[in-house]
């Protein structure tokens, strides 16, 4: 180290500062975190290929009508986002806690909220690109485009938010990065089973209604209702319009998992 007193004196006494807004700081960190995603080429490739693989389902099963397309693609549209944001989010949270990177970033001028937002936004953007690939793929394969794109957009948005809070919560309670693959399983299985059953034919109507209480199934129901020709959908278990119920129950899970993330959050590696 070759510091000299004169160098330090000059710069210390000057100590120039600038005012950075929270938004500017967050935006800069989002850009950095996005560049980090693009650096990991294998992960990036796998993430972008995932929706392409999802499109093999309709290629193989060849849905005969719009209802068939909806039953097949509504869960896929949501689950591709869940896989991308929830699993990657939980993995990043556990890994950064374990590598003590959170401790480092905590000493920066980012607030904890800005830190988490800037870490998750690139995953959400990547997830939304995946949804776009799925929707475009369905159209390319001759499937119907959503009659109500706003509902699909709303479903994608709440799924992304729920996946973020779920990822942060599960990453927080996971003992270490190696155990994340097990920690994410319960919610992932619940999402996968619930999402497919809630729009599947031959499911008991009562069970179908209760399935709407599960996380992510409300979003699947929203995507299914965005089509022109909807399959047999669940009756809402509460006296609310289906869309309000779907958004409400997903909102409930966002708040519940967000609370879990808040109370279980740790900056340092777990014992």
């Amino acid at each position, binding site marked *: *180290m*070759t*510091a*000299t*007193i004169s*160098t*330090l*004196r000059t*710069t*210390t*006494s*000057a*100590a*120039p*500062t*600038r*005012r*950075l807004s929270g938004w500017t*700081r967050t935006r*800069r*960190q989002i850009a*950095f975190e996005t560049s*980090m995603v693009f*650096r*990991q080429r294998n992960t990036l490739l796998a993430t972008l290929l995932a929706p392409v693989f999802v499109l093999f389902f309709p290629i193989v099963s060849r849905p005969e009508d719009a209802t068939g397309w909806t039953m097949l693609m509504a869960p896929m549209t949501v689950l591709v986002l869940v896989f991308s944001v929830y699993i990657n989010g939980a993995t990043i949270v556990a890994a*950064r806690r374990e*590598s*003590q*990177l*959170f*401790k*480092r970033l*905590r*000493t*920066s*001028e*980012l*607030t904890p909220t800005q830190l988490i937002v800037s870490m998750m936004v690139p995953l959400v953007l990547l997830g939304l690109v995946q949804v776009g690939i799925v929707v475009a793929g369905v159209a390319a394969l001759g499937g119907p485009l959503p009659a109500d794109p706003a509902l699909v957009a709303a479903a994608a948005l709440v799924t992304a938010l729920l996946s973020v809070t779920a990822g942060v919560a599960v990453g927080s309670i996971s003992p270490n990065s190696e155990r994340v693959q097990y920690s994410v399983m319960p919610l992932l299985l619940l999402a996968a089973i619930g999402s497919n059953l809630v729009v599947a034919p031959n499911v008991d109507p009562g069970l179908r209604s209760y399935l709407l209480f599960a996380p992510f199934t409300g979003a699947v129901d929203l995507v299914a209702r965005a089509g022109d020709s909807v399959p047999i959908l669940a009756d809402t278990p509460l006296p609310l319009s289906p869309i309000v119920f779907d958004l409400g129950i997903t909102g409930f899970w966002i708040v519940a998992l967000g609370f879990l993330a808040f109370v279980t959050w740790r*900056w340092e590696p777990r014992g």
Partner: protein
Amino acid sequence: MTPTPIPPPDAVVHAAGLDFHYDEYHAVRDVSLTVRRGEIFALLGTNGAGKTTTLEILQGFRERSGGDLTVFGVDPFRDPAEIRARTGVVLQEAGHFGEISVRAELTMWSRLSSRTDSVDRVLGLVDLTHRSENRVDSLSGGERRRLDLAMAIWGAPELIVLDEPTTGLDPESRRTLWSLVRDLRDAGTTIVLTTHYLEEAEELADVVAIMHQGALAVHGTLDEVLATRPSRIQVDVAPLDGDRLIAAAPAGVTAAWNDARRPADAGLRALEVVSDDQQAALTWLIGTAERDGMILGPLRASPASLDEVFHHVRNSTTVSATPDHTTSEVSR
């Protein structure tokens, strides 16, 4: 050095009666201290003494359980943004974005900071210019520590908190870091430092505090802290003369043989005189020798070392074995 309830005008950090509990465990107990602008304040202590917890409270990472605390005149837990903008931190352990270059990581850091600086200048200060394009995960432990320091000194913050900054550094790097810390202090930066290396504190600190079991056991300037333990006079004397000196030692002065040290002159024996008042002990020793015709051999008078103070604190403090150390007593 006892802090007043009202912070002095040049106080950067002012704590009064600081307390912190981890559930049942009383980690920080009634800590009062003041760190003044432009001084190096060394916080020492045994493992688990509460040093890092105290630093985390000072930085606003933890909310204190009790007491008063201001950093730059504000409560660090309530207004962390104010603290972060004016403080650089080297944590005991913290991760890096290993897959990017040293320059890229420091650039990322710079874009979040409200302090401006030059990446090249800061890398030069910590002697990492030659590694600037290398991936962070290819750096050695000592180089990573220097990168930690680069992030902490970015933009010349008013306060730098260094939590065991030289752990893992080789002796040469440690000495050059000391030089850098002194230069920062001379440039007006306030530095709070924790270390396990007592010679580091003796080398650098203007003010020293020693924590033990959550409490501040000793606190003051380096001289004041050293003065809490008796000074020693080592002298070689004839055995008979030494016996007479041991027998005649006045109140406040203890004289005893120190056979661990072997005098060069085989006819003499090593005597150690211990006293809180070195001046009075020397006057007595020389006066008695002159009066009684004793011949004194080589004589060396020295104050207590920080090592002695530290060990005394560690050994003389007794704490009851309850989970919550509320019934503990500190005896000095």
